[in-house]
């Protein structure tokens, strides 16, 4: 009798119904075109040996570093560079302001005009921008500031 009871239990366990369920769990996400820019390092302009060029491409000068993150398709535009501030003793107008850039895109030739280029999907990347002011008449003592406006859209 005891053997019979044990057998009943074993048989019952072997006959346990299969209980299975499966579900596909769904996640949704939306990616939109975005662009993030930041000035990681401001540029520093230094005077050339002959005193006619004040530029970040000169010895001890520092190009500005702009970081860019792009999702989707975007365009980076740099406005025509301008001389923003200068000392009272300097008369602007005789010189030219120009820029170039390297890094995530390259335009090594200096240009006084605005420039732009397209970018696609881009992880954190750097654009190095040089600005320089050239004036055959030289520069008065003081602080100068040149700028280009960079937009990403």
């Amino acid at each position: 009798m005891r053997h019979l009871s044990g057998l009943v239990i074993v048989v019952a366990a072997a006959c346990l119904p299969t209980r299975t369920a499966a579900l596909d769990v769904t996640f949704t996400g939306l990616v939109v075109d975005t662009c993030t820019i930041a000035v990681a390092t401001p540029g520093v302009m230094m005077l050339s040996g002959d005193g006619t060029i004040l530029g970040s491409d000169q010895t001890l000068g520092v190009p500005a570093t702009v970081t860019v993150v792009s999702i989707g398709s975007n365009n980076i535009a740099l406005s025509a560079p301008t001389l923003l501030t200068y000392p009272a003793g300097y008369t602007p107008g005789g010189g030219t302001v120009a820029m170039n850039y390297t890094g995530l895109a390259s335009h090594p030739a200096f240009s006084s005009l605005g420039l732009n280029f397209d970018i696609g999907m881009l992880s954190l990347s750097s654009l190095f921008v040089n600005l320089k002011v050239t004036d055959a008449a030289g520069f008065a003592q003081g602080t100068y500031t040149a700028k280009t406006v960079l937009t990403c859209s």
Partner: protein
Amino acid sequence: MQLARLAALLVPLLALLTGPAQACTIGVSTAGVLKLSNDGHTLSSGNSGGIASVLAISDLDLDLNGTTITISNTRLDTTPAGFAAPVSYAATYNAVWLLTGASGSLVSNPSFTVPPVLNLVVTVTLHNTVTSATGFKQGNYTTKTTVTCS
């Protein structure tokens, strides 16, 4: 006499165990939402702003083997037209039930067994991650992960 008493006790239990098959039930209580990472390389419910999917698994097996829950087959289900970048997938989970739980990933530990406990519900928090070295094109993405209980 003792055997008769034992049999009387076992009969209801055996009837329960051998009763009509009833599948365990998996329900989604929170839908998962993927968000893009700051560097644009990962689309994940674990990124800032993302939402994990929360599942409730009930009607669990009461036999001595318990219920095995398996997480498998994470895949990209829908993508914007033209998106063909190679991607890799990852899924992680955290499951809790009476007084204890389990956690793991699709790679290292894709399944776990819940011991038989009456009135048991397992809550599973599931994350999905898709990684693309070249980033993601603008548009809607959907990932899926299969969860099975048996």
